[in-house]
Structures are given as structure tokens and as C-alpha cells.
């Protein structure tokens, strides 16, 4: 019974880790890759570590595993957010079929722009009322040095 439960947990965790790896290898865009990698791998590792805690069934191991799971759950979203933000502001292009760019010139962020974020060259302030279905041709603050 216990072995069956452990086997099911390990299988589920491995499935999610594998899904994350396939997503990283196959997705067309860095932001989609980041999304696939951070969420699915956190869930998969959590399942696998839960199975290890059930297998050893001792307090020391369970303590370590609770520490790993808590730390992963806390830090994986933070790291993914920092990476996505850094990638966007260093001019990483979106996928060409992306529908909407909230940080770009047609998005929500640009309308509520505060003065602390400095942009090198602002585009003209004609903001379209309806968001067009085509991706922006060029980032307004694309980095000059690649």
C-alpha cells in the first residue's frame, strides 16, 4: 500500500519534470519557456520529494524535505520573475504570434507610466484604443548593444 503510494507520487513527479523539460526544449519564446520551466518543475520536484519523505518515514529526513519544498516554493517564482523582467528589459523579442504586450506601448503599464522608470527614447504618445492583433514591430527601448 505504502509502496504503491510512493510509486504513484514518483511517477507523477517525473511526469511533471519531463513536461517541464519538453516545454523548455520546444517552446518558441523565452517567456513561454520560463513559464513551463518554473511552474511544472516546482510541482514535479515537490511530488518526488514528498515520495522520498514517505519512503524514509523518519523525522530528520522529513525535516530536510519540508525545508527543500518550502524553499523551492518560495524562491522559484521570485527567480522566474526576475529572469523574465531582466529578459524583457534587455530587449528579448516576443514570439511573432504573440497577441498582446502589456509592458509595450499599447499595454496597461505604459499608460500608468511613473517617472521612476526611465526609457531612453519614448515612442510618440499615440496609444491605440483597441489593442491590435499584431505584435509590435520594434521595442521602443531595444538595447543597442546585443
Amino acid at each position, binding site marked *: 500500500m505504502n509502496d504503491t503510494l510512493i*510509486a504513484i507520487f514518483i511517477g507523477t513527479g517525473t511526469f511533471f519534470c519531463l513536461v517541464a523539460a*519538453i516545454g523548455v526544449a520546444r517552446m518558441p519564446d523565452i517567456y513561454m519557456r520560463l513559464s513551463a520551466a518554473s511552474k511544472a518543475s516546482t510541482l514535479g*520536484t515537490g511530488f518526488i*520529494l514528498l515520495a522520498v519523505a514517505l519512503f524514509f518515514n523518519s523525522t530528520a529526513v522529513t525535516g530536510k524535505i519540508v525545508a527543500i519544498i518550502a524553499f*523551492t516554493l518560495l524562491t522559484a517564482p521570485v527567480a522566474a520573475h526576475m529572469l523574465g523582467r*531582466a529578459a524583457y528589459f534587455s530587449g528579448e523579442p516576443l514570439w511573432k504570434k504573440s497577441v498582446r504586450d502589456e509592458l509595450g506601448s499599447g499595454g496597461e503599464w505604459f499608460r500608468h507610466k511613473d517617472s521612476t522608470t526611465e526609457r531612453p527614447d519614448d515612442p510618440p504618445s499615440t496609444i491605440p484604443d483597441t489593442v491590435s492583433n499584431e505584435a509590435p514591430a520594434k521595442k521602443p527601448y531595444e538595447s543597442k548593444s546585443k
Partner: protein
Amino acid sequence: MTLADYVSRIILPLLGVGLVLTLYRILRGPSLPDRVVALDLTATFIIAISAVYSIASGQPSYLDAAVVLALITFLGTVAFAYYLHRRGGNE
């Protein structure tokens, strides 16, 4: 089929396939953030593999490596993100 057999014959090869896929992205990734994402996922895979290997070998000591790796990976990713932000955004 015992649990150790199940782990070492089925689970570890599957995780190895995932590791190879992330290695493919590290080698091919068109830009630096892609490689950083793939490195982050590689570290997560190594955490999972060391946890699973502690079942296969019956030794809970491998979990210490998983703890240390979980602590170090976050710092590495944040350092890479900070470097990318400095390199791309401000100049």
C-alpha cells in the same frame, strides 16, 4: 518489482531524458536568458535525481546535496538576472 528496481529502471532514465532536453536548450538557446532558464531547470532536475537516487540506494545522505543545491540555485539565478538587467537595460 521492488521500489528500488522501479526507480532505477524507469524513473532515473526518464529524468535523464529530461536532463538531455535541457542540455539541448543550453547548447542551442539563441540568447543568454534562454541558457539561464535551462540552467535553472537543470539544477531542479539534479535535485529531483538526487532525491530519487536516495530511494534507489537506501541512503538518505543524498538529500543533503539536494538541500544545498536548492539554496545555491536561487542565488545563481538571481545573480544572472541582475547581470542581465545591468547589461541590457541601463546602457
